[in-house]
């Protein structure tokens, strides 16, 4: 059912891959082939010719940053959502030198030894010609890296772990390929806030409206941790105007769809489209989750909605605010007041509600209903608007962390939840910036630089980690380092639990197996 998978306008909708070329785009094919040959030859013999090959390779690597420099200046001039086309060579250089394949592998594999958790995991590649290649899978981190370098996709997405290798799906009967596990994911996108943000629309964002994402992350993260008891939640900047959450606890990964729907429903509050009138109608007393969320959101409402966005400044929005209030008498006096002072700010308007209510002009006014309505309004204007379809299905694909958003050139970096307030999407590193950072570092440290061939390869899984004299990996020379370090620590704590869990499970299941087989 592609319709259930495909989110709005995502390329998942052209899922049919019969039209897709098997070969990678012509431009980077020679380079990739050369590399493969080189690697193959290395195992057999190391002759003079081989070194020639490597030299070629090296030249290529050094060419990339130079060729991408003009693009970089362009992004400097127009930061933010101005469409930046990341050219294929920059992309390839990023995959070669910076992309943390090894850590991505460890994250999905839940350990060092390659397991079906990684081997049967679906990847979906969007190639440079916009073709969409689903059901890719890789046994090891090396092969994963190799294929990504060969295909040089503009981005790729991560799907579920299947019971069989998804590449074999054509040889399996219908319904034989079943998804077993995937991280529970959430998607927050600022386009869903368009009716309440005044600063930007569509794909644009600024610091002011990013606050909506910050508060949404806080609310969702708190609920997932406190209510559902999840611990390993990775928040990732989606590269443009939103954020993704990957809940990686083993318990979350194996949730069937109806439980995912349960969580999505639990967190979902703002229902109904534009025609649904008052969209938040909570029962009282408030559910503890709502109560807590309200406490988290109140300061944001005061700052973001009332001051930064000044949401109720326009007559239309003020009208909408009135339509959400319960008492007719109060509304009439508010309307009169605001009409006489058209420039009244949102903060004042919000304060007017209580001020006028206290004067007791309206005889029908019930203070409790007014308080409840105000709470509902606070929630309607600040509560997270999740794209819940993403969370409901195990088979939903979601863009991988650390890929580059093709529209902005920004890397989808993880967001450290402890420093959530300090994260600024507009200063998330762009690919061109990172590549030039490597260059300038190399220029500053000529002795240590990556001119000495093979270490130029970002996170090659077998890169030497030995001691203090080791060479720096490329990402360590750039502003990507803190993000990758955070990702590593996240993986470390996840895999720590995974190891403990596995041991426990083995101990538990061992006796069971025995008793079962006795029956035969």
């Amino acid at each position, binding site marked *: 059912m*592609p*319709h259930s998978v*495909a*989110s*709005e*306008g995502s*390329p998942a*909708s*052209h*899922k*049919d891959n019969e039209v897709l070329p098997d070969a990678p785009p012509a431009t980077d094919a020679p380079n990739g082939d050369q590399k493969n040959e080189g690697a193959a030859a290395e195992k057999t013999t190391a002759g003079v010719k081989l070194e020639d090959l490597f030299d070629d390779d090296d030249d290529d690597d050094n060419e990339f940053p130079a060729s991408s420099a003009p693009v970089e200046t362009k992004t400097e001039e127009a930061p933010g959502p101005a469409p930046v086309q990341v050219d294929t060579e920059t992309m390839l250089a990023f995959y070669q030198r910076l992309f943390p394949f090894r850590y991505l592998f460890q994250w999905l594999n839940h350990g060092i030894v390659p397991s079906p958790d990684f081997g049967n995991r679906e990847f979906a590649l969007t190639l440079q010609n*916009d073709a969409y290649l689903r059901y890719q899978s890789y046994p090891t981190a090396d092969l994963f890296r190799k294929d990504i370098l060969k295909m040089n996709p503009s981005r790729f997405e991560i799907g579920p772990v299947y019971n069989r290798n998804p590449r074999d799906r054509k040889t399996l009967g*219908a*319904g034989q390929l079943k998804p077993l596990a995937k991280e529970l994911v959430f998607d927050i996108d600022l386009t*869903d806030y*368009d*009716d309440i943000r005044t600063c930007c629309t569509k794909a644009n964002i600024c610091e002011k409206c990013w606050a909506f994402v910050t508060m949404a992350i806080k609310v969702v993260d708190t609920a997932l941790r*406190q*209510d*559902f*008891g*999840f611990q390993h939640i990775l928040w990732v900047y989606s590269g443009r105007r939103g954020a993704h959450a990957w809940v990686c606890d083993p*318990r979350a990964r194996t*949730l069937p769809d*109806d*439980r995912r*729907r*349960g*969580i*999505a*429903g*639990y967190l979902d509050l*703002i*229902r*109904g*489209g*534009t*025609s*649904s*009138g*008052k969209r938040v109608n909570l*029962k009282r*007393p*408030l*559910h*503890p*989750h*709502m*109560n807590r969320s309200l406490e988290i959101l109140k300061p944001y409402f005061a700052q973001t909605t009332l001051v930064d966005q000044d949401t109720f400044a326009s007559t239309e929005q003020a009208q909408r605010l009135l339509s959400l209030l319960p008492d007719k008498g109060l509304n009439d006096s508010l309307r009169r007041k605001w009409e006489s002072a058209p420039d009244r700010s949102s903060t004042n308007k919000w304060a007017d509600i209580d001020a006028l209510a206290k004067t007791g002009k309206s005889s029908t006014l019930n203070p409790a209903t007014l308080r409840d309505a105000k709470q509902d309004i606070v929630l309607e204007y600040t509560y997270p*608007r999740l*794209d*819940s*379809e993403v969370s409901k299905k195990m088979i939903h694909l979601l863009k991988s962390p650390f890929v580059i958003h093709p529209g902005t050139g920004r890397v989808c970096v993880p967001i450290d939840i402890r420093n959530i307030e300090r994260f600024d999407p507009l200063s998330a590193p762009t690919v061109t910036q990172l590549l030039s950072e490597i260059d300038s570092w190399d220029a500053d440290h000529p002795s240590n630089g990556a001119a000495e061939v093979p270490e130029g390869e970002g996170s090659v899984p077998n890169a030497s980690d030995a001691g203090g004299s080791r060479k720096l990996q490329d990402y360590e020379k750039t502003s990507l380092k803190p993000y990758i370090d955070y990702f590593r620590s996240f993986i470390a704590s996840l895999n720590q639990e995974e190891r403990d869990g596995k041991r426990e499970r083995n101990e538990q299941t061992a006796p069971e197996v025995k008793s079962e*087989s*006795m029956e*035969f």
Partner: protein
Amino acid sequence: MIRQEFNRVDPKRRANLNYKKTQFATPTFKQQDYPHRLNFYDTPPTAEITLEQFEQWAIDRLKILAEIEACSYRNKTAAETTAHITPLLQKFLPLSANTSSRTGATDPRLKNERQKDHYSHFILRLAFSATEDLRRRFARAETMLFRFRFQADDTRERRAFIDSLNLDWESVSDDERRELSEHLVAATPGLRRSDEETWYKVDWEKVPELVERRSVFLSKGKAYVPEREQLSMIIAEFTARLERALELTSRALPRLDEDDRLSPILNHLSKNFGSAESVYTEGEGFVDGAPITAASIDHLSQHFPLCMRSLHMSLRKNNHLKHYGRLQYTLFLKGIGLSLEECILFWRQSFKGFTDDEFNSRYKYNVRHAYGDVGGDVNRRGRGYPPYSCQKILSDSNPGVGQTHGCPYRHFSVDNLIGLLQSTGVHDKDLLRGVREDVEKTRYHIACNRVFEFTHKAEIKKAKEDGSASEIDLDTIVHPNTYFKRSYLLKQVGKAQKNS
């Protein structure tokens, strides 16, 4: 085929495979006695029954399940369903409580009833495990039957039954309850004090319904469930076990070592689980002779039910529809007989702000997929999805921010609904009041039919008078395409009359 070799089994474990030794041994499985009225159907039946019994019992149960399903498709309330089902159950599948007999559970009458219930369940399980669709429907109907019986059971027996299930529910200590009292009361609707109830602590995964409705207190992955919400948990457990069992049965089915006595019966049974969902057959919504092209949709939209009209209006207003709205509308258009080419043309023209490339890469595929022009083998053979029925539209997920699909009667606020109706030219006060009442009682399809009858009052009358009403049958409408077809035909009748 590679089979595991039996000889490789550890000799110690093979011992009881020797038929000579097992021939006169006591069977390891016993005849079941049925201490409780209800049954979780965990143990398969082992006693012998005749072929006639096999068939008759299965047919009786099937009748019940079909009726239950029909009730749910007609959107009947729980009370209406109970009233409808109770006499049927009494007739075909009685199941009496222990208290109905002096000797309790040992009464042979009770035992026979329970045996029939037990066996018929397992026979149907065999018959309905073959396809995904049948499994899902079977699990759904059985769950509803179980829920119905569970609610009707008397308290003491229910208690005993639950105890016999051995579910791992941890009860909440008094101290903990006092500590969390405030949260518990706030989280659980309709409760004033937390000490009125016994509370259980279970993994939240066991009560997804409660979690989804946000009507249970959660902490650290545990749900604090009051005793009266047991129903939800038991039902969830029942469904989960049944689904798992059906899955296993389906895998075992190809290896069913069977002569040709059972297979025909089983096949016959599964075919007779007449799907109430498929009241709509392919091509049913087509109207002969009606000129249906991309250009005529605007004109025809006056015959569309409110859900589709609202989609059409927002499409015209915004020059765009979100995915689910597009899907719902495309399938409807397919249902009224719009060809694929015309449909693509229709969408292309409607999406004004997009270039051809954007349209082709983002939207065209979905339209083609809905028509079965592309996609997997199953999709193509089935010519895409069938147009959505009211049932489907009502029960699918609520439209989210900016989405327009769904049923206006259900998903719009009452004021917006009335506004929408007025914008389509319905102003009659009595009618609107009627609609309000229906919507309050969640009888959405009745509201829709009420509007239909009102807007076609004159034509229906005429049609009844000249006898053409029999051609255009006048049942309750439960499918948007039926709405269109009937509306269109009625107007034609009206026109024909005027002409002659």
